[in-house]
């Protein structure tokens, strides 16, 4: 075991898969010579060479569509988006082509691509660089969507994503890149579609994913210390496929649910979760399902105000108290 950064965990996953499978290629802006805009791919060019680690021009529609075409012939591209916010430049290639080609060909084609990059606010980079589109992506059957919150999860999930024969959208977080966590030395995989109970509790279930999990754990600690409330925190890890069973089991235990998401509320992942929880565990609910989302406006620049726009431990704590009322 060793303590490594989230970015290092991603890098290890890439390196291991590049070593294992000669078809894996890493493409993206500044991934090679610049060592990665957030230093995630640092050192990979030196290790694997320019055929495996490819700097692309600023051309998302072009290189994502290109990666898709190559994947149809067996190449396994891992395409980096410098920010997931840039996915909208390549909407057609992602939402129309990646999601649908298998279906439209009647199952004759598979597109084993991974698109990865950071999707988050909280860094004062403004409305156009702070998108968290996991809900939009998950709304497209044919695609898979993964949002890891820890170095351990990031490494195991990325390896699984690369080996997956379906297109996988992998959403990281620039703020989490520096977080350290325990990662085993031996190889391990984490399957998609498996949630993780990050903290056990009895009074309230918090369902979350990504950095909001870290925030929720901090809030859970405060809730125990200051309010003697025992909170169970579930990290979905995978939005699609979705491990709703772990969530439901928890709700059956605590009877109270709070969804915490760094998403704007309308049609966010929380909306889907709330539907499923009330649909499948209605009689277990002792109160309405609560939800704590990003405040519903474009991401604000002003640094201290942005902190209040996103989920943070104090906002989560207040939402939890209300959910227990």
């Amino acid at each position, binding site marked *: 075991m060793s303590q490594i950064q989230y970015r290092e965990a991603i890098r290890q996953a890439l390196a291991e898969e590049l070593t294992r499978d000669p078809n894996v290629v890493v493409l993206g802006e500044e991934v090679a010579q610049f060592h990665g805009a957030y230093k995630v791919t640092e050192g990979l060019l030196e290790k694997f060479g320019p055929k495996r680690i490819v700097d692309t021009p600023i051309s998302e529609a072009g290189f994502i569509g*290109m990666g898709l075409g190559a*994947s149809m012939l067996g190449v396994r591209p891992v395409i980096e988006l410098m920010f997931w916010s840039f996915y909208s430049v390549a909407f*057609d290639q992602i939402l129309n082509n990646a999601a649908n080609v298998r279906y439209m060909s009647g199952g004759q084609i598979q597109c084993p691509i991974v698109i990865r990059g950071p999707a988050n606010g909280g860094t004062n980079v403004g409305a156009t660089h702070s998108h968290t589109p996991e809900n939009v992506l998950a709304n497209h059957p044919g695609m898979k969507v993964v949002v890891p919150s820890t170095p351990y999860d990031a490494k195991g999930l990325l390896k699984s994503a690369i080996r997956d*024969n379906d297109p996988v959208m992998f959403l990281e977080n620039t703020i989490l890149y520096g977080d350290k966590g325990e990662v085993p030395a031996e190889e391990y995989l984490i399957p998609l579609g498996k949630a993780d109970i990050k903290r056990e509790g009895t009074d309230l279930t918090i369902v979350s994913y990504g950095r909001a999990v870290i925030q929720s754990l901090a809030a859970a600690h405060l809730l125990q210390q200051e309010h003697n409330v025992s909170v169970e925190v579930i990290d979905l890890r995978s939005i699609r496929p979705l491990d709703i069973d772990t969530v439901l089991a928890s709700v059956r235990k605590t009877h109270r649910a709070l969804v915490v998401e760094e998403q704007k509320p309308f049609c966010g992942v929380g909306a889907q979760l709330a539907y499923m929880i009330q649909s499948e565990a209605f009689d277990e609910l002792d109160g309405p399902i609560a939800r704590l989302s990003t405040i519903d406006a474009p991401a604000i620049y002003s640094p201290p105000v942005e902190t209040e726009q996103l989920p943070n431990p104090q906002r989560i704590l207040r939402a939890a108290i209300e959910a227990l009322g």
Partner: protein
Amino acid sequence: MSKKSNATAESQSDATTAKPDFAGASANASLSAEKKIELYRLMLRIRRFEERSLRAYQSKKIGGFLHLYIGQEAVAVGCCSLMGKDDHVITAYRDHGHAIAVGMEMNPLMAELYGKATGCSKGKGGSMHFFDPSRNYWGGHGVVGGQVPIGAGLAYGIKYKGLKGACMTFMGDGAVNQGAVHEAYNLAALWDLPVVFVIENNGYSMGTSQARSSAGELARRAEGYGMAWGVCDGHDLYEVRAFMAGFLDAAREKSKPAVVEVRTYRYRGHSVADPDNTYRAKAEIEEYRKTKDPIQVFQSLLLAEKVLDDALVEKIDAEARAEAEVSADFAEASPFPDISDIQKDVYWEADNPSERKSGGRLFFN
């Protein structure tokens, strides 16, 4: 007279000199009589298939869109007939011609148009989404220009695997202004991808003529990217083959991309719902049909070469019509997909459950 290419292919067509002998070009000289008849038959089969599908559409057997290839047959047949085992093809939604040209059979194509489970995409794609990976044919795409980066990607894959092959990436004259197309051009030129971008210029992007859509010459834009380019007429099958052979060679052997424009014409509207009287005169269609119909042109050439005779022409036509009719019967008699089929062929993992590694729910209703 504007320069028609910056390549030194044999296929330069110059109005002031005598018409070059395309039949004698190296790409064509080696064709056997049987092969020539085969090529002729392919074009005619495309024509009859398209006509039969038009009739089926008007009888409400086919829903949605139908973009007919009538008038453009020489382009698909000419290009696809040059394919080697590591060459690949991708096109936009006017894809029936390419499907037949790579060897797909009429029954599954017509069944796909009818939305039947026996269709080549199990009824899930429709007219715009014919695919056959086993014949290196990658569709069949609905969004204008969307297939072009994918085509560059197929070329990337060919090169990555160290194969000597080229990807012909077809698009219409309306696609050339899409951003994704320019991005693909840049990537292809930057990385020397073995892709030949083929612009099937039939003069109109839906109802908007080339003159009203595009600044400058279409294929010449390649110069901006440092790529080879060329233009040829697409109604003479021999010319198409002679012209394309050089570019394909450059792609296969030297991994050099190119942008080529093949001038052709569609007799029908953009799709069957297009009355096409708002943007062109009937006389224009009639003129092309009389003087440049690709099937007529090739038929005349082969009759002159004594490869075809009238009886064979009749026979081939009757067989093509019959084959199209049989495919309509096949489609009619085939069952529709079951409701339970809607959620199949979405995820590889869901279709291969014994190899599934993920947990959780993939579907949400």
